[in-house]
C-alpha cells in the first residue's frame, strides 16, 4: 500500500537514529515533507511556502541542538514547522480581526491547495477539517510518521493522537460519502 504514494521516493521514511547527517542533506531530503505538512496545516500553499522557508532558516540556526539519538530529522523539523505555523496562525488571527474581508477571501481564493491529483470531494472534505485534524492526517498518512513521533510533534499523548486521526479520517469518509450520495 505504501507504493501507492506517488511521491514516496521523495518522502523517504526517517533515517536511522544516531547518525548525525549534514544539514544540507536533511534540507534536501525533508523539504517536500515539511512543505506538505505545512500545506495541510495552513490550507494555503503560499503561506506554507513562506513558513517552510522560515522553518529551515530556524532549523539551520538550531542545528547544533539537534540530537539524532532523540528524534529523526523529519520529526524534529516538523516540530519546528509547527511552532512556526502556530506563530503564523496567531498573526493571521490578529490580522483577520483587523481585516474581516480578507478572511472571507482567503478561503475562496485557494484552489487545489492540498495536492494535484486529489479528487474534488476529497479536496473539499479536507478543507472542512480543522487544522488540527488536517495536520494529524498529514503527519500519519502523508509523512508516514509513526504514532509516538506524530504525538511528539503535536505535543499530545499517543492515544490522543490516534483518536484524533481516527476522528479525522471518519469525518473525511462521511463527507466524501455525502458528496457521492
Amino acid at each position: 500500500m505504501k507504493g501507492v504514494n506517488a511521491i514516496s521516493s521523495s518522502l523517504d521514511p526517517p533515517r536511522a537514529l544516531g547518525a548525525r547527517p549534514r544539514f544540507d542533506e536533511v534540507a534536501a531530503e525533508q523539504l517536500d515533507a515539511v512543505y506538505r505538512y505545512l500545506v495541510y496545516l495552513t490550507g494555503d500553499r503560499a503561506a506554507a511556502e513562506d513558513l517552510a522557508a522560515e522553518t529551515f532558516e530556524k532549523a539551520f540556526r538550531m542545528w547544533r541542538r539537534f540530537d539524532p539519538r532523540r528524534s529523526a530529522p523529519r520529526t524534529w523539523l516538523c516540530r519546528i514547522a509547527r511552532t512556526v505555523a502556530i506563530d503564523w496562525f496567531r498573526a493571521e488571527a490578529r490580522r483577520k480581526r483587523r481585516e474581516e474581508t480578507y478572511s472571507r477571501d482567503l478561503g475562496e481564493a485557494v484552489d487545489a491547495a492540498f495536492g494535484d491529483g486529489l479528487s474534488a470531494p476529497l479536496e473539499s472534505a479536507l478543507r472542512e477539517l480543522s487544522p488540527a485534524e488536517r495536520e494529524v492526517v498529514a503527519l500519519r498518512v502523508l509523512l508516514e510518521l509513526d504514532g509516538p513521533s506524530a504525538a511528539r510533534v503535536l505535543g499530545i499523548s499517543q492515544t490522543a493522537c490516534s483518536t484524533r486521526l481516527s476522528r479525522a479520517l471518519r469525518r473525511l469518509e462521511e463527507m466524501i460519502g455525502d458528496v457521492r450520495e
Partner: protein
Amino acid sequence: MSASDVIGSERMEALLRGDAPRSGAEERRAALLDGLRTAQLRAPEALRARVLAAAPAPAAPRVTLLRRPSRRLALVVVPLAAALAVGAALVHGLVGSGGGRTAIGTSPAIIRAIACAGTSGRQANAGRAVPRAPRREIRAPWRRRRDGAGPQRGAAPSRRRTACRTASGR
C-alpha cells in the same frame, strides 16, 4: 455509521502500514488513505533553491565542532575567573588589613631606629636589638612629666632625637 464500521487503533495502524483490509469499513478506509497519498505535492523550485541556498557548506561541521567547546569553555572559565578574583580580593583584604595594624604599630619605631642608626654610629655599631617603643613616650614624653625633671619648656628635644632615645631604651 454502524458499530461494525468502527476500526480499532491496532487495525488502523495496520492499514497505515499497508496491510490488506479485512472488512468493508477497512476497505473504505484504505481507499481513503490511498486517495490522500496519491496527491502530488512537491515544494516549488523557488522554495527549494531558497532553502538550499541558505543551507551551510559541507565545512559547517568543523565550525560547529570548534564553536561548541569554546562557548562551553567560556561559560565555565568566566564565572570561575570571576569567583577566583573575588576570593583573591577577599583574602587580600583580610590579610592586608590585619598586617596593616602591625605595620602601623611597629613601623614608626623601626623607621626611627633606622634613622637613629644613621645619626648615631655607636648604636649602629653596637648591634643591639631595637626594643619596641612605648606609645606614650613616643607621643610627647616631655609634656607628661610634671615633676619638672623633663626638659624645659621651649627646649623640647627634636622629635627625631627623642624617638631615638626611646627606641634604644634610654
